[in-house]
Structures are given as structure tokens and as C-alpha cells.
């Protein structure tokens, strides 16, 4: 599927005119000599012990496959969650403006005039998390706050990009957990959105840097919930990333059954 969606799309100005390789031909199962970078500084606070154990095990698998494991530094990655939730909500607040009840979608009934139609439509039509993001995003773009939030976030994002480019100079792929914890219960963190956002630490960091990343299942935690590792590669180097992910999957096939239960 990647080979179909990858490459230039004439209707999307953000796509690049870069040749698309035959990804499948790179799936050789060979990880010998590959350099796997591990940002140990991101394996600290907030990382679930079971997740840590699974991911350490996976690092061992790569060693066994003949890969070299090296330490890498991503000094600005610790700001990634803050940066991401400023930029993403700013964009979301603007992207969602089109759901105003004028042309399509939900429209509140019986609003007496235009402004109240807008207000009621958006009040009734959006859920709590969406509203939270719209408000956050509106705030960070507001006159007087733009420089302190949105602009600053974009500057830090540039530093994060530079961190990744630097780290990927000395390795072929960066390995992290996909998520610091296993799945939480439905509704468990609805009242604590910050804890929920923190679960995105590893994934959104790669998104901010604009580099490719893939998530591969790598075991079950102590409670029997699935754990995954993430491999991040250089710009346009999906082929190496997929080759390493495939090599890992072949060496450590994930056939465990997670403990799935609706109530407990």
C-alpha cells in the first residue's frame, strides 16, 4: 500500500517529487551491520516497566541479528509533546473552522441569526476533546500569544528536526517504544488529557521531525497487553526502515495472544 500512496500527488502541494523504490524488494531479512540508535534519555520517567522489558528484549534480537546498537542523543525531544500540542491544535482549530453549519454537515436548529447559528452548531456538533483542541489552538494563535506559543513551537520543532538529522547521521534507524504505557482502559484518562497526550511522546516526535517511522509488535506486558517498538529512519529511507522491521518480525514473530477483556 505504501508504494501506491508514496510519491508525488499533483493534488497535494506538500508531496515531494522523489522516486518511489520497490519497497518489497528490500525485505531481505538481513539486519547484519545495521546501526540501531537508542535514545536512552527517553527511556526514563513515565516508561512502563513491562514496556521497557519488551523493548530491551527487542534490542537484544537486533544484536543477535548482527546489528550494532549505539547510543544517540535527541536533546530537544523532551519538548516534543508541548511543541506538538501547540502546532497540531493550532492547525486543527483552523482546519475545523469549515464545520460551521453553512454548507454541509450538522447545523443547529432554529438559530435566530448567523452568529448564534455558528455558536450553537459548533457547541452541539463537536465533542469535548475536539473543543479542547480548538480552544487550545485558537489561544496559541491569538494576537499577543502567537510569538510565545506558536512561533516558539515552530522554532523548537526545527531543533527537533536537527536532532534527528544529526542522530541519523550516526545510525540507520532509531529504536524507541511506540508508546510509554500499554493501552489504558476506555475512559480512564478522559479527565486527565495531559496524561493521555503524554502517551504520544515517541510517535509525535517523529512526526514533528518529518521522518518516516514504523511500529512493530514486540511482546506482551505483565498484564498481557501488547507492546510495540518504533523504528525511525532518515528522510526518504523507508526502504531501510522496512528492511529492519521485517528482519525483526522474521526473527521474533509475534504470535502471542493479548488478554482482551471488556470488564475486569
Amino acid at each position, binding site marked *: 500500500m505504501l508504494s501506491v500512496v508514496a510519491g508525488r500527488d*499533483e*493534488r*497535494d*502541494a*506538500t508531496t515531494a517529487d522523489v522516486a518511489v523504490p520497490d519497497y518489497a524488494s528490500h525485505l531481505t531479512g538481513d539486519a547484519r551491520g545495521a546501526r540501531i540508535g537508542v535514545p536512552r534519555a527517553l527511556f526514563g520517567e513515565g516508561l512502563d516497566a513491562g514496556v521497557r522489558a519488551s523493548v530491551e528484549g527487542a534490542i537484544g534480537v537486533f544484536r543477535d541479528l548482527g546489528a550494532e546498537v549505539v547510543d544517540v542523543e535527541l536533546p530537544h525531544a523532551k519538548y516534543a509533546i508541548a511543541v506538538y500540542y501547540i502546532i497540531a491544535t*493550532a*492547525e486543527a*482549530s*483552523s482546519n*475545523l*473552522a*469549515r464545520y*460551521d453549519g*453553512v*454548507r*454541509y454537515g450538522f447545523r443547529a436548529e432554529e438559530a435566530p441569526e*448567523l452568529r448564534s447559528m*455558528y455558536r450553537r452548531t459548533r457547541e452541539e456538533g463537536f465533542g469535548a476533546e475536539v473543543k479542547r483542541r480548538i480552544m487550545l489552538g*485558537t489561544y496559541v*494563535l*491569538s*494576537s499577543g500569544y*502567537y510569538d510565545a506559543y*506558536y512561533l516558539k513551537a515552530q522554532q523548537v520543532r526545527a531543533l527537533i528536526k536537527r536532532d534527528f538529522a544529526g542522530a541519523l547521521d550516526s545510525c540507520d534507524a532509531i529504536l524507541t517504544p511506540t508508546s510509554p504505557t500499554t493501552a489504558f482502559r476506555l475512559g480512564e484518562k478522559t479527565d486527565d488529557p495531559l496524561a493521555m497526550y503524554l502517551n504520544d511522546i515517541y510517535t509525535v516526535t517523529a512526526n514533528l521531525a518529518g521522518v518516516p517511522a514504523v511500529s512493530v509488535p514486540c511482546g506482551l506486558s505483565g498484564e498481557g497487553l501488547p507492546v510495540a517498538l518504533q523504528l525511525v529512519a532518515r528522510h526518504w529511507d523507508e526502504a531501510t526502515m522496512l528492511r529492519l522491521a521485517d528482519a525483526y518480525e522474521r526473527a521474533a514473530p509475534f504470535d502471542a495472544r493479548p488478554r482482551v477483556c471488556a470488564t475486569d
Partner: protein
Amino acid sequence: MIKEGWEVVIGLEIHAQLSTESKIFCGCSTRFGDEPNSNTCPVCLGLPGALPVLNWRAVELGARAALALGLELNGRSVFARKNYFYPDLPKGYQISQYDQPFSERGELEMMTSVRDESGHAREWKPMKVRILRLHLEEDAGKNVHEGLPETDRFSYVDLNRAGTPLAEIVTEPDFRTSWEAYDYVNHVRRALQWVGASEADMEKGNLRCEANVSVRRTGEGFGTKVELKNLNSVRFMQKAIEFEIERQIELIESGGRVSQETRLWDDHLGETRVMRSKEEAHDYRYFPEPDLPPLVLPEGFAERVRAEMPELPEARRARFMDEYGLSYPDASQLTSGRALADYFERAAKASENARAASNWIRSEVLRELEAAGRGAEESPVAPEELGALVRLVDGGKISGKQAKDVLVEMFRTGKTASAIVEEQGLAQVSDAGEIERIVSEVVAANPKQLEQYRAGKESLLGFFVGQVMKASQGKANPKLVNETLLKKLKG
């Protein structure tokens, strides 16, 4: 006239529609007057998931406009979202440019004049205007409140115009009178039309302007500015500024303060009224458009665009003076539009007498065109035909007076000058032998007058000329008749 002791500060914003076939971020047609909402697609309707793709033609025309107004192109500019809610704005934001615009740092020289009571220009003088920026953006759609069913309950939205490319042109606050502002807008209109960047027709709404007006006592710092909108013609703008100047001065003189606000011109009432105050002003929350990469101009782009542009009016005026020996006012008039300047140049070449061609065009031709409501490019008399007419006069075939009648006939029938001269038998008799024959006859037939003339009554020359012209049915070349008569009469 501005009241003694006061100074006026005016800055202008012009929105000009760029003459592209399709919209700035999608392939929909920009045609005016089509069935409402027929020129729309997922992109300009703001449907979820549809993305903007920049129309390069809009960039080229924007560059023409910028270069024609003396701006510098920025090699890299950034599109930004201007966020606000309005039913004619499908995405909830307008894609515009903000802190990194397409072009900046412009300065142009235009002609301006004070006006007398009835609005006639007194004396044209050059004036420099600094242009802060010209940036590219998309237009919004149009809300319709009239002419459709149940407009008491519903408003309608036509999105045909949504996504039409615009150039927004912002000046520094360099104008001191409403007429300077008026002359500037006309200058910009002509410049944009000249280079084919925009039709710049205010009637069709493809050129709109807004004015920022403030007053101050001479020598003081800037006063509070008021933004004027709904200026649907250059004349309305001039009147609105004039009204606003008086209103602000009166307000301050009576102890009041001007408040920062947007006011609309009401032409029926001849006054401006408040649309919104500063407190109600939008916070547009500009930020870089994430769906579009920065606009980076290729190496040599500005030079390429410049090379494709026609010679600019100022350069052409200078050349007309230099090459054809025209005066400044004449050259200015002939370069007031590109079609007219082209017309003159072709006629000048065909006539081999540029001065005469200039005179004919500025008087007779323009009068005929104006009467017919046509532009020079639609003239039923081709410039080469005008040139041929001038040559008939210069060659002594017809008199200047006859030529005027012939030209009227050319405009009426579309026939060539020589065809009309032939048909009406107008050709002058310039054959010396033929004229000498007629003159001899006339002299011989009027011995009494000849005697009186020879006795010193030289005023009788006119009588003889009249007789000769009559005998030749008006066709004799007057110059030759004069010369021949003088010789004969002296004996």
C-alpha cells in the same frame, strides 16, 4: 480644499483580480456571470480533505503587476491563513500572505493634479508613491440577499468567485489629498491593464479599494485612522475621503475624538457610517498555511517576466517624445492606454508623419471612438488607414478640411480613404496645366476686376480664388491656385 492648519494622511489598499482563466488554488473557471455555484469543486467549496495547489499563472500575473508598479519580488514568500467566520468563506479561513509577502519595497512615479471646483484638473505634476507590498491571495464568494425566493428568511451564497486570484496592493500613507488618491488608483488601474495583469474594472468588481484616512494639525504626529470601505468606483472613493476629512476635522475642532473604526460609504446619502469599531475588530490569527509549501521563485524568474512584459507606459511616453518628437502632454495622452499607444505607433509609421498622426488621433479619432463608445483596439478605422489619409493630405491630394469629412465617412462606412475620395470625386486638381487653364479662363472672364486689381485693389485676390474654386468644383489645390493666380494677375 483642505482647511488651513490641517494635514491629511491617506493610505490605500487595492484588491485587483488577476486575469487568469482558472482559480488560484484549483482548476475552476474564473468566468464572471455564470450560473451561481457552477464554477466550483471540492477545493474551492472547502470540502474536507481537498487541498490547494497553486496556479502558476497567478504567480506570473502577480509578478507582472508587481514589476509594473515598481515593486521587488521576494524570492521566497509564504502563504498564510487568515481565519474568520463568514458564510462566503467556505474554509473558515482565507489563504493570503502575511509576514512574508510576494513583493515589497515599491516606488512609482505618477501624475497628479489639483482640481478646480468642477473637478477639472489644473496642472499635472509628477508625484512619487511608496508601495509597501503586493501579495497574492484568494477571493471569497458572494452573499446574495436579493432577487431570490424568500430573501426575508434566507440569504444565498454563490461561491463562483471563491478562490479567484487577487493581488492586494498596499501603499505607505503617502497621499495628502483625495485627488492624489484618485489619481493613484487610476494610475494603478492603467498599469495593471497595460501589462495584462488585471482587467482592473471597478464596475465588474475586479478592482476594489479601501482607504485609511486620518487628519492631524500641521506638524503633529499621526492622527487616529479610519478605514473606508464600499468604495465602488474611483469617484466614490474620492468623495468618501473628502467627506471623511471634513468629518474628522469638524469632530476634533468641536472637542471630539476620532475613534479607530471601519466606515462604509453610502453614496445615496453621500456620507460614511460606522461598520465596526476597533473593539469589534477581528483577530485573524494568521499562521503559515500548512497545506502549501513556501512559494520559491526559480532563478531568473523576475527577468523572464520582465522580458515578456510590454514596454511600460512611462518608458513608452519617453520614447514617443524622443522618437516622434511629441510634446509631453501629447505623449502622455497617447500612452494613457496600451491599445491607444499601439494605434498611434502603427498610424505614425503608415503616415510617415508622426506629428500629424498624433494630431489626428488626439482630436478626430478619439472623438469618433468616444462617440461610438469604443476603445482604440475596436476602431473601425485601422491605424494604417488613418496613416493613408494623412499621406493623401501631405501629398496634396485632398485638403485638410476635406480629410476631416473623409475620416467621418471612414468611421461611418469602414471604407478606405482613397475609396471615399474616389467615390465622391474629391481628389484635388494639382495638375499645373489644368489649373493654369482654369485660371486663364477666370481671369479672361473678369476683365473689370482684373483692371481694379492691377490698379492696386489687391483684396480682389480672394474673389479670383473663389471663382477658380467654383469653376473647379472645389477640387483645385488651393496652394497652386494661389500661386498661379498671383502670377497671372500681375500679368
